[in-house]
């Protein structure tokens, strides 16, 4: 070993271990916590959603415009579906982001996939939120037999 390095260039042994301060923030930690917290809430929200829409009454056959209109005329289901929309989309987008980071090795591939993912997230969440808040269960001019019963009370 013909090293020309002087001994003084090597760190002194037993120097106390100092944890390097990360410059990246705690983003990954928060995302890990969010997956668990939102997961628990989503189990309740989605099981409730599936039970009411697929198990009660005629199940999937009962779903039509009048069914959705009847549900969304109640603030309870509006809040339920809005929470489900946001939590599920953030949970799902974060999960797919993790998978992209794991399997897409080229920087450019990873970048393109994540841009597409965030674009889909933004479009779908904005659209879904607008629909829940601007939805009219009794649109004027629509055939009466397609509308929920609340359009005809009083």
């Amino acid at each position, binding site marked *: 070993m013909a090293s020309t390095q002087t001994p003084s260039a090597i760190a002194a042994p037993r120097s106390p271990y100092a944890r390097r301060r990360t410059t990246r923030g705690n983003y990954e930690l928060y995302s890990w916590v969010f997956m*668990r917290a939102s997961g628990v809430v989503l189990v309740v929200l989605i099981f409730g959603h599936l039970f009411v829409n697929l198990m009660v009454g005629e199940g999937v056959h009962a779903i039509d415009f009048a069914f959705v209109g009847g549900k969304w005329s109640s603030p309870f289901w509006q809040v339920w579906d809005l929470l489900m929309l946001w939590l599920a989309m953030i949970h799902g987008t974060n999960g797919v982001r993790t998978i992209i980071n794991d399997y897409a090795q080229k920087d450019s591939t990873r970048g393109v996939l994540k841009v597409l993912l965030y674009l889909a997230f933004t479009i779908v969440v904005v659209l879904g939120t607008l629909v829940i808040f601007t939805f009219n269960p009794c649109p004027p001019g629509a055939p009466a037999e397609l509308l929920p019963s609340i359009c005809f009370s009083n």
Partner: protein
Amino acid sequence: MWSWVAHRVTGVLIFFFLLVHILDTALVRVSPEAYNAVIGTYQTPIMGLGEAGLVAAIVFHAFNGIRVILVDFWAKGPKYQRTMLWVVVGLFVVTMAGFLPRHLMNVFGGGH
């Protein structure tokens, strides 16, 4: 390891269904006719089987997700992770046994 793979696969499947499902529901804002036309295609036998598969994916992802949380936060979680996988499988079978007959009756029996 295989439960981890299954968690990823079901997660991606559910995510893509979610994107489609929000877009089709958004049709209520277009017109009752547009929404009913599209949702009508969900009520065919083939889509009914797809819905059964989707619910199976959601039920597994939900129960296995709870197991992951218990492994992470419960002191004895790592020790019982294998037992908990069998609990997940058991709960999955029970839940699907409750759901499938009801759903398949709605899809293939009576209805419209």
